């Protein structure tokens, strides 16, 4: 790594010093293309975020792709029903690495007001890894921008080698997650324990 002070000094002399890692991550974080799909009312806030007032394009994410093959990020914007959950997981599996997930709103992170309903999944993080959770019902566009910036910081901080490197640089990395089957009474299995180990409840 280049010393920060030295970098600034060299910059004053007209010499630009960087690392491949920084350059690579700068490129990745500056053009995250979201997948174009919405699940419920949060999607309306997501649409508002892309429009002129909030302008997601400032962060290089205005290009919503209607195909999972071209998308880098999935915004789970709304209630995930048990009927929809297998399709959401399947779409995530079809995305190319590196891929990221923002769970937007109370429903997507926990089931929200429908948590005890018979047809609502209690959080999409039971089946796929979620990078940023946003609470709110629905979250304001500013909250989505905040989540987006959090994701950018996360990408920026990723090292290209060693433990915790992005999955696409890890030969062992597993980017596919089992799609739940719609059973006679519930989804089977009810959660992917590899992604979602039972959280500890502090009482």
């Amino acid at each position: 790594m280049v010393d920060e002070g030295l970098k600034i000094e060299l910059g004053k002399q007209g010499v630009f010093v960087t690392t491949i890692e920084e350059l690579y991550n700068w490129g990745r974080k500056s053009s995250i293309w979201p997948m174009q799909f919405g699940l419920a009312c949060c999607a309306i806030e997501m649409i508002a975020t892309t429009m002129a007032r909030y302008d997601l394009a400032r962060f290089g994410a205005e290009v919503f792709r209607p195909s999972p093959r071209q998308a880098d990020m999935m915004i789970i914007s709304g209630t995930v029903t048990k009927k929809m959950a297998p399709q959401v997981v399947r779409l995530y599996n079809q995305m190319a690495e590196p891929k990221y997930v923002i769970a937007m709103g109370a429903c997507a992170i926990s089931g929200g007001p429908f948590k005890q309903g018979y047809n609502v999944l209690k959080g999409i993080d039971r089946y796929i890894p979620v990078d940023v959770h946003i609470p709110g019902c629905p979250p304001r566009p500013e909250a989505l921008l905040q989540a987006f910036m959090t994701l950018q910081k996360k990408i920026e901080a990723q090292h290209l080698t060693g433990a915790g490197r992005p999955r696409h640089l890890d030969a062992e990395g597993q980017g596919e997650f089992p799609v739940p089957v719609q059973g006679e009474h519930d989804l089977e299995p009810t959660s992917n324990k590899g992604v979602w180990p039972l959280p500890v409840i502090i009482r």
Partner: protein
Amino acid sequence: MPGAGVGIVSNPGPSGQHSLRLNPSHAAAVAKFLRDDAELALDFLSNVTGVDWPDKEIAEKVKVSKAVDGVEQTVEETRKRVEPGCLEVVYHLFSVARKHGPVILRMRTVNRTDQVELPSLTSIWRSAEFQEREVFDLYGVVFTGHPDLRRLLMWDEFTDHPMRRDYVEPDDFEYEPTAHDAVAARAAAHQEPREGKVAGQ
């Protein structure tokens, strides 16, 4: 219409929305009359919904004459009988042409286990199609003559009817960070008991 078997179910509440109980075997003819009659002209079906009436246990006091110590006496006895439940479908009709309504129709199945067929009114009011599918999905009423009777909200492999009173939801209460009341009690079954702590609190 003689023999149509239409009864009136009165509503004693302040809204006073009384309804018509139809005999399922004549329901299609009655519905057609309600739609086509020039005075009624009930051309708009706004809502179809279901009601689940579970089996009801009724305790009754009956006076029985009995021989007590050789003497005939009248003794009060409590007897329990089970009134069989049923599934009910409710239709709300309005007339756009005559600007009146609602007229409420009710139909009941024989029981809530094996004889759950009712005639579909989709052929009279097209808007019944999806709503009858929803009632089929959530209550398990089978509409005979329905053009496309599939589940609407739940997936095809699902076998339960979630809006019935005896529906048992899957026991996935292993993680309830903000549980209270009934949810807390169910979540407690998944938690290890702690000393000095009452389960579910």
